[in-house]
């Protein structure tokens, strides 16, 4: 994944808090994906303006975790979502 990209959810994907479980979730035409708190924190930063490096830096400021771990989390989440067509493809 090129580190210059500015990730953002695809327009057909909605991120919201589930009314029944109180947990974050993604909705798209085919279904619902329950998110972990850390995935939700990452996606909150994926606004199409920040680059991957900025997202990692923002996470590092917020959470007490090694940068390598954060980087691995961000990259694997983005790859998984992109593979399912849930990320905006351009940028």
């Amino acid at each position, binding site marked *: 994944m090129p580190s210059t990209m500015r990730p953002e959810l*695809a*327009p*057909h994907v*909605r991120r*919201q808090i*589930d*009314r*029944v479980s109180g947990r974050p*979730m993604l*909705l*798209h*035409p*085919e*279904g*619902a994906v329950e998110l972990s708190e850390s995935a939700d924190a990452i996606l909150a930063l994926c606004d199409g303006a920040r680059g991957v490096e900025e997202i990692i830096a923002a996470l590092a400021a917020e959470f007490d975790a090694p940068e390598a771990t954060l980087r691995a989390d961000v990259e694997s989440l983005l790859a998984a979502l*992109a*593979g*399912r*067509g849930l990320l905006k*493809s351009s940028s």
Partner: protein
Amino acid sequence: MSRPYGLLAELTHRCPLRCPYCSNPLELAARREELPPAEWQRVLAEAAALGVVQVGFSGGEPLLYEGLELLIETARREGMYSNLITSAVGLTPARAARLRAAGLDAVQISLQADEAEVGDAVAGARVHAAKLAAAAAVRDAGLPLGLNVVLHAGTIDRLDGIIRLAESLGAIRLELANVQFYGWAHANRAALLPTREQVDRAAEVVAAHAERLGPRLALIYVLPDYHERRPKPCLHGWGSRALTVNPRGDVLPCQAANAIPDLEFPNVRDHDLAWIWRESAAFNRFRGFEWMPEPCRSCPERERDFGGCRCQAALLTGDATRTDPVCEFAPDRGLIDAVLAAPAAPGDWRYRPAAGA
């Protein structure tokens, strides 16, 4: 017991098209039997409270239901993601903009084929060109576009053209659904059933395109289950993740469930959805594994396929508790093999009536 995530809201059985593969039941609901919008609003609120996060507005043709925009607004207000499942007849740019403004999240348009001549012959109406225009209108309104094409003996050889058309229309998703034999499709089985050679070839064409397209256009290929050796799973399990409400207000665990003659489906006019989901006999009938006969009862596959489709078992054997006849281990597999061996009659179908159009 788990919660439902998805609701299929079949607003009407009325439709301007006459697809011979239509999965709607043979006894189509008349307009006067339809639930009014206020009842649907209550159903949507009850569904959201129960955990439903996704609503598919379908039918029949949901665009014919007066109050559709109101229901989309209600779904949005309740925090649910809404998808319109439509033939797209009547989906003008102005209507697309109104639907979007009401809060619609996505649209899925069905096409019958890649070319007007074939598509119009299958639909039993001159609609192909209007569908292409509607697809453009959906995109121009800023709504995500999915497409659905039902594959059968008359269209499965056109997959290459169908996939290229979907690409040119800017769809994000194309569902290639081999015809499932319920409702009118069951009545027209001999006219629709593809040959083994056709389905083998189709699988190759889909795989080649999927490889080329990647996530740009998601291809969802629904298997032709008569030609398989194992049945398709009963949803994610009977009464486990989804429910369907039909135009009369009957609540079904699956849209095909009215194929099961001895189940009585609860109606939203008599009970709230939470009771129906948790307590009703129909939703509890095939939950878990207790109801299963052999060979399913002692088969490890039961965790994955739940013994196959209850509705198909009922439709083919008259007994919904039997193993889905598609399964190679089913005592009734001979029923499927006999259908596969019977002479085909491609194109010789009876159209479903364009009810109330």
